[in-house]
């Protein structure tokens, strides 16, 4: 998995590319650590280029979500391919993640808080 990082004002965007599985889960958690430990962090995970996700990948996302919550931050997931979104639905994780179609939508939601 490739992960690139963009800072946009007080929002951090991580663009994920490739497989989100056991091997990449730890990489993603490591890279997010600094961001999600900041108080009131705003994190966008752009998953447009994620072409595979399994339960370990979902586990990493849940772990990051919990970290954001404990620093009173907020996280949004964007640009999910329909077949990846389906796995969020099956596991009912769509209920706890804020999933937005685009980064723009996610940003406007952050702004409206």
């Amino acid at each position, binding site marked *: 998995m490739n992960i690139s990082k963009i800072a946009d004002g007080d929002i951090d965007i991580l663009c994920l590319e490739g*497989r989100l*599985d*056991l*091997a990449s889960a730890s990489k993603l958690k490591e890279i997010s650590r600094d961001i999600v430990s900041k108080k009131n962090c705003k994190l966008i995970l752009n998953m447009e280029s994620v*072409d*595979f*996700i*399994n*339960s*370990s990948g*979902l*586990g*990493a996302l*849940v*772990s990051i979500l*919990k970290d954001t919550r404990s620093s009173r931050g907020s996280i949004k997931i964007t640009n999910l*391919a*329909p*077949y*990846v979104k*389906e*796995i969020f639905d*099956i*596991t*009912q*994780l769509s*209920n*706890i993640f804020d999933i937005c179609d685009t980064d723009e939508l996610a940003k406007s939601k952050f702004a409206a808080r």
Partner: protein
Amino acid sequence: MLKYAFRFPNEDSAFTISDDIFGRVIDTIDTDIAERHKMKLIVSELFMNAYLHGNNRDNSKSIDVEMEIDSELFVVTVKDEGGGIAKERFKEMVASISAPEDESGRGITIVQRISDKIQLFKDSDDKFCIKATKKIKKQAKQPKKRKKKKSLEAV
């Protein structure tokens, strides 16, 4: 019915490449990306469980993966050398979904929900087997038929 049967050592380096190898096989199936993702996910979860739970990272053990494929069905059987899952426990696992905050425990439920049938059994070598069967959806709309040449273009 095409039949692939792969035996991997229960080893880190083998685990690293396993999903990739299954992916290559599944990519030969004529269906859409969502269906293929589901098949890859089934094998990925079952293999990971065999590696981590069944064989408990013991690298003297091995994992067998059989994939049977025809135009309508995808049947995968993953075998490990561990004690298996009691049927009662399995029933409980698939009856409920993990709590949203759990970081693990979703593998079996995912497999159960995207498969049409799951069977647990021991084979004649006393290996623990999980067999998942999934109907393959026909592609909703086919992109313009590319006629022959397909294999050449894929070169």
